[in-house]
């Protein structure tokens, strides 16, 4: 899987990246930085299935990327972007959203799986794309993941106030001179980038979980939108760390392991919040 490469040619400053565990952890934390705030918007705007459809399309992206011999990151990002836009357009035309998304999400996954089987002479380990393979993150992967996450984080930070206003009400946004259509595009673009960078970490099937579960857990603990985004980042980061340990020592698939940790934190925060509520009212 991963090997220690040419220790002699690297400078001391980069030597820590030679450790595959360090690379895995850094990649996971970078993804958590992007999925935390973006996941909050997915929750606030009720885009859970939208995230699912976009993420499932990533498998089709993998197949096309391998078929046309382009970068997997690029392939998944482009297909995710196309998928997100198709969903947006159909939603705008008044199609029933859950049906549309149900059709598109599962079709994209099925087409992707079938397309991969057609690829000749390519040994594709599909499990890595379906469930993630965080321990196999290369230096190049890490660089792309870090760049993608930085892009998403920067985009959301830059547009934060407009995104939040447009999320609250499109009419209020218009009145304040904000174009909600542009903010929606920002989120669509961010989602496509996140799908591309998170594929290696949690896999296509569970990218949406990494968006939604930390944000939902953060909701129990936060008192403002900004707090919720920060707490979601922390919960995502802790889940990545925990999932990495589990994956390393028990040889479990990395994506599900990370999501298991996130789900446990969600359960704990929900129970904790309910207990606090009960203590206050009594």
């Amino acid at each position, binding site marked *: 899987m991963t090997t220690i490469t040419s220790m002699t040619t690297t400078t001391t400053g980069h030597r820590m990246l030679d450790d595959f565990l360090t690379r895995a952890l850094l990649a996971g934390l970078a993804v958590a930085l992007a999925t935390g705030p973006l996941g909050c918007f997915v*929750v*606030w*705007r*009720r885009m859970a299935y939208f995230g699912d459809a976009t993420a499932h399309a990533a498998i089709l992206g993998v197949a096309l990327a391998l078929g046309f011999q382009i970068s997997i990151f690029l392939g998944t990002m482009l297909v995710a972007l196309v998928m997100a836009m198709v969903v947006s357009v159909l939603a705008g035309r008044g199609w029933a959203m859950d049906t549309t998304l149900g059709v598109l999400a599962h079709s994209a996954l099925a087409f992707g799986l079938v397309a991969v089987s057609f690829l000749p002479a390519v040994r594709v380990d599909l499990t890595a794309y379906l469930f993630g393979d965080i321990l196999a993150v290369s230096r190049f992967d890490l660089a792309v993941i870090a760049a993608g996450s930085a892009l998403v984080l920067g985009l959301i930070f830059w547009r934060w*106030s*407009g995104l*939040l*206003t447009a*999320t*609250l*009400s*499109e*009419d*209020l*946004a*218009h*009145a*304040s001179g*904000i174009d909600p259509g542009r903010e929606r595009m920002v989120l669509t673009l961010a989602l496509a980038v996140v799908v591309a960078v998170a594929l290696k970490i949690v896999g296509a099937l569970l990218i949406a979980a990494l968006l939604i579960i930390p*944000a*939902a857990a953060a*909701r129990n603990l*936060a*008192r*403002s*939108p*900004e*707090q*919720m985004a920060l707490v979601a980042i922390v919960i995502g980061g802790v889940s990545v760390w925990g999932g990495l340990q589990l994956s390393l020592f028990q040889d479990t698939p990395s994506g599900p392991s990370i999501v298991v940790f996130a789900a446990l934190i969600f359960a704990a925060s929900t129970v904790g919040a309910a207990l606090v509520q009960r203590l206050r009212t009594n």
Partner: protein
Amino acid sequence: MSLIAARGLELRYGARRVLHDIDFDIERGEIVTVVGPNGSGKTSFLRALLGVIKPSRGRVLRAAGLKVGYVPQRLHIDPGLPLPVSRFLSLPVPASKSAMAEVLEQVGVGDVLKQNMTTLSGGQFQRVLLARALLVRPDILMLDEPTSGLDQPGVASFYRLIEDVRRETGCAVLSVSHDLHVVMSASDRVICINGHICCEGAPHVVRAAPEYRALFGFGTGGALALYQHDHDHEHDHDHDGAPHA
């Protein structure tokens, strides 16, 4: 030049035409009320002026750098979004703590700054919406059925508040309403809409217009008569001097 104008405005939802041939102007300091029955297109009209709905024909003109304070009819806040009043008030334009406290005091809910938006009562919520609209020091306040959640005394005090704001800041006020009798007494001009502009003018003129009578009938005669008397009295003697009791 007027703050907002519409010329030959037509709005469609798909094949359905909701508004047509609308010409409209509002000047600084004017209070204009749009009335019309349900489904008459009055909310769509407001949203077209905001830029939410693109006209299928005609155009909307806005003064350059126009600051709009918008109070929506309803605002649903997803329970997944924790939103304190202080954060809501500074969205998207940051406001200082003192400015927020001051404007909340002005609209009569001085003690809600730290509360979550979802814990407010209907009346408090409506006032916080108004406070947010006022914080940007708007050239024009646009109100869509702003008193729908309020009881009678609440409605009266809400409109008194709007008049105070107009007097203090000189901003224009454009509201959409079915609270005919209360709104009318405060308006400089009433526009009666039902797919198009049926009639328009000073409140007493509109109230007497056959087009208006045809739309709203005489069913609410008691309440209207009371206010009509009140207004006519005011109009006959001193248009802008009389205090509202």
